[in-house]
C-alpha cells in the first residue's frame, strides 16, 4: 500500500505510541488527583506542555490542550470575537479558503452580527499582506488566516501578516493544523497571537490538539466545567493522547530540515511527472507550498472514481479535503483559486511524508496516468 494522504491523517509514529502506552496501561491516574498515580499523570501533562511550547517557541502556560484542530479553531475565533464585541469591534478578516472549522465558525458569528471579510486567495492560493492591511478597519477585532492550506498546500506570508496585525493592534490567529511539525514555526518572531494545531497531522494520535494563546490575551472556554487547563478547557485530560501528540511533535521538529529535504524532493518529482499529463494543472503556487503537498486538477474526470481506482491499485489519495467527502459540492478551496466547477471535480491530492519512497513515487507516476486515461475514455465530456 502506498499511503499518500498524509494531509488527511498520518500514521501514529512508533515514538508517539511508545510514549502513550504507559498512560494507557499502568499510569492511568486522573491528573487532578492528589495521590502519586494522579500526580504522575499531571507531570506527564506538564512535560508535554513544555515540549509543545518548545516546538512553537513559547511558554508552557501559553499552551491549552484541546480535542483537535477543529476545537482549537472554534475556541480561538469565538474567544477573540467575544473580546472584540466587548470592545465594540465586530469585524473579522479571513480568507475564502480556510478550513470549515474556521469558515463555519465565522458564519455562526455573522448570524450574531459580526461582519466577515474573506480575502481573495488568487490563482496562486496565497493572500498578500497588503490585502490584509487594506482590509483592516477600526472595527477589526481579529485576523484569522491559515498557515498553510490543507488541500493545495500553499503557505501564507504569516510573519508579514503577524507584524502588520501587531502594528495595527489587531489579534492574529492562524490555523496551523497543516503546518505544525512540517514547517518551522516561531510564534514570537512571527507575531502570532493564537495558533491551532492537531496531533494526527504530524504522526500523533487523532482526537487531540492544542491551542497556543499568547500570554495576556484572555481566552474564553468553549467547554465549561472542571478546572482543567487553567479553567479554560474543562474535561478530564486525554493524557495518553496529549503525551503522544507532544512526542510526535518533538520528533517532527527535531527532524524538520532532514524531512523537509527528503519530502520536497519526492514532491517535486511527483509534480514534474504529473505535469506531463495533458489538460491537468497544478493547484496553487509552485514554490510556497508544504513539503509534501501535490494537488492537481485533471479535466474530464471526476475525483471520486479516480480515488476508487487508485485504491484498487493500492494508492491512498484524496480529492479535496477528506472531511467534506460526504458532500457533493466541489471543494471551496479549488473554487477559491478560480477553478471552474467542472474542473474542480477532477482534483487529486497526494500528500507525502518522510516514510514515502522514490519507488512509491515511480509507482504513482505509472498508475495515475493510466487511471486518468481510462476514466477520460469513459467520459462524455472528454473530447477524444
Amino acid at each position, binding site marked *: 500500500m502506498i499511503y499518500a494522504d498524509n494531509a488527511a491523517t498520518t500514521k501514529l509514529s512508533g515514538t508517539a505510541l511508545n510514549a502513550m502506552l504507559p498512560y494507557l496501561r499502568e499510569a492511568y491516574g486522573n491528573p487532578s488527583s492528589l495521590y502519586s498515580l494522579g500526580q504522575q499523570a499531571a507531570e506527564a501533562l506538564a512535560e508535554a506542555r513544555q515540549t509543545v511550547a518548545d516546538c512553537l517557541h513559547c511558554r508552557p502556560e501559553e499552551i491549552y490542550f484541546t480535542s483537535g484542530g477543529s476545537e482549537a479553531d472554534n475556541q480561538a475565533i469565538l474567544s477573540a470575537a467575544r473580546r472584540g464585541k466587548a470592545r465594540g469591534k465586530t469585524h473579522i478578516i479571513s480568507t475564502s479558503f480556510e478550513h470549515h472549522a474556521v469558515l463555519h465558525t465565522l458564519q455562526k458569528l455573522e448570524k450574531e452580527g459580526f461582519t466577515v471579510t474573506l480575502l481573495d486567495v488568487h490563482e496562486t492560493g496565497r493572500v498578500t499582506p497588503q490585502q490584509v492591511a487594506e482590509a483592516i478597519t477600526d472595527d477589526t477585532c481579529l485576523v484569522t488566516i491559515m498557515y498553510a492550506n490543507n488541500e493545495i498546500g500553499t503557505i501564507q506570508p504569516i510573519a508579514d501578516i503577524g507584524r502588520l496585525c501587531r502594528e495595527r493592534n489587531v489579534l492574529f490567529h492562524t490555523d496551523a493544523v497543516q503546518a505544525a511539525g512540517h514547517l518551522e514555526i516561531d510564534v514570537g518572531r512571527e507575531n502570532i497571537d493564537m495558533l491551532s494545531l492537531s496531533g494526527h497531522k504530524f504522526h500523533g494520535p487523532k482526537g487531540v490538539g492544542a491551542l497556543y494563546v499568547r500570554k495576556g490575551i484572555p481566552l474564553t472556554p468553549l467547554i465549561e466545567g472542571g478546572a482543567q487547563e487553567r479553567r479554560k478547557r474543562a474535561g478530564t485530560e486525554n493524557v495518553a493522547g496529549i503525551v503522544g501528540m507532544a512526542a510526535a511533535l518533538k520528533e517532527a521538529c527535531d527532524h524538520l530540515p532532514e524531512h523537509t529535504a527528503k519530502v520536497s524532493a519526492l514532491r517535486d518529482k511527483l509534480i514534474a511527472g504529473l505535469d506531463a499529463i495533458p489538460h491537468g494543472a497544478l493547484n496553487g503556487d509552485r514554490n510556497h507550498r508544504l513539503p509534501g503537498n501535490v494537488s492537481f486538477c485533471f479535466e*474530464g474526470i*471526476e475525483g*471520486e472514481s479516480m480515488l476508487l481506482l487508485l485504491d484498487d491499485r493500492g494508492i491512498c489519495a484524496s480529492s479535496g479535503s477528506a472531511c467534506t467527502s460526504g458532500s*457533493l459540492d466541489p471543494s471551496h478551496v479549488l473554487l477559491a483559486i478560480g477553478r471552474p466547477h*467542472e474542473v474542480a471535480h477532477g482534483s487529486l491530492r497526494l500528500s507525502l511524508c518522510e516514510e514515502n519512497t522514490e519507488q512509491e513515487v515511480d509507482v504513482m507516476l505509472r498508475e495515475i496516468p493510466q487511471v486518468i486515461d481510462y476514466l477520460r475514455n469513459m*467520459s462524455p465530456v472528454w473530447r477524444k
Partner: protein
Amino acid sequence: MLYSEKVMDHFRHPRNVGILEHPDGVGEVGNAKCGDIMKIYLKIDQDTVSDVKFETFGCGSAIASSSMATEMIKGKSLDEVMDLTNKAVAEALDGLPAHKLHCSVLAEEAVKAALKDYYDRHNIAYDPKQFSSIDCEGCH
C-alpha cells in the same frame, strides 16, 4: 465499505461502456458543474433495445448506476424500459449510500431521455408527462 460489492463490481468492470456509431436514440443528463454527466446510446429493433452503450463522467456510484441501468434495459421491450425506476437500479446494486441515490436517478433519467430522443427522431407519439423534467436541482 462505502459501496456494496455489487456497486464496486459494476464500477470496476462497467458493462456496455462506449458509444454507438449510429444510435437510434441518445440521452444526456446531469451537468459537469455538479460533477455528474451520463450519456446513453440506444439501438432499437422492433420495439426492443438491441444494443446500449453509456459514457459517464461521475463518481463511482454514477458509473455503477449507468452500467447497471444499461444491463437492465438491454434486450428489453420499450414498455419495459419505460418502467425502469431509479429505485430498481439502486436495489439491483444492493443499495447506494443516501447521498449517492441521485446517481441512480440520473441513470433512470438518462435512459428515459434516450428513449424520448428515439421517439422524437422517429416521430413516434408519446405522452410527454411520462418524461419528467430532467433537472439537476431535483436530485440534490
